[in-house]
């Protein structure tokens, strides 16, 4: 599996650390309530198909949102995070 780093280009999956679904980019407001915070912290889908998740390119220090398919293992692309 190869993942595109916005800084370094396509790299082997061994160079990355997985962080989970992009849910972590959508932090609820402080007063959003217990249910929203419970979802944010603990509840994840387990999709068979397209998903978007967060990967860290250890060698250069870039965070990447990766669009991939859990069924075909195809990696459609990646966007760098600020």
């Amino acid at each position, binding site marked *: 599996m190869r993942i595109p780093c916005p*800084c*370094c280009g396509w*790299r*082997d999956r*061994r*160079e990355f650390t997985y962080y989970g679904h992009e849910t972590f980019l959508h932090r609820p407001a402080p007063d959003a309530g217990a249910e929203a915070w419970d979802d944010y912290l603990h509840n994840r889908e387990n999709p068979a198909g397209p998903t978007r998740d967060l990967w860290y390119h*250890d*060698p*250069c*220090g870039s965070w990447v949102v990766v669009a991939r398919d859990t069924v075909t293992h195809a990696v459609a692309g990646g966007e760098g995070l600020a």
Partner: protein
Amino acid sequence: MADPSVTLTVTGGADGLGLPLRHGDCRLTAQPVATASLIAPYPGRVAACSAALAALGLAFPAPGQGLSAQGARIVWAGREQAFLFDAAPPDGLAEHASLTDQADGWARFLLQGTGAEAVLARLVPLDLRAGSFPQGRVVRSLLGHMPLLLIRAASDAFEITTYRSMAGSAVHELGRAMRATAARG
């Protein structure tokens, strides 16, 4: 006044590791890290860093780039990070970047020989053939499980830099790969 009973001795990151090593036509030698300043520009200050580095004839490098002038080198080392080797940081640079002296934290080796690409192919998950990794190119990657700063120094030579704490493992892994590559003839 200094205590005369205490003597501190400077040692290199590759001392005591049995270098140089030779297997087949490949040779692994220690390359002492005399000075290494990590430059991490403050947000939006890359251009200002380049202006300060112009005093050394250098600029802040783009990803994968290394530059040298007047005996000093600057080498890309990660997202908005670079190492300045073999020179003190120029005046004014500290206003625009966080500077840390990391010379003691890294160990550097030179792997030279026509089989060097084949040796590193066993340890580095990248295409290091000259067509995709030409002379002067810099990458951050992995040497086995170890963090790696790799520079193609010549058509048949690679400069290998890793954490000093892992220097023994690096020499062990490189030696094993050199031996196995040489055994294939």
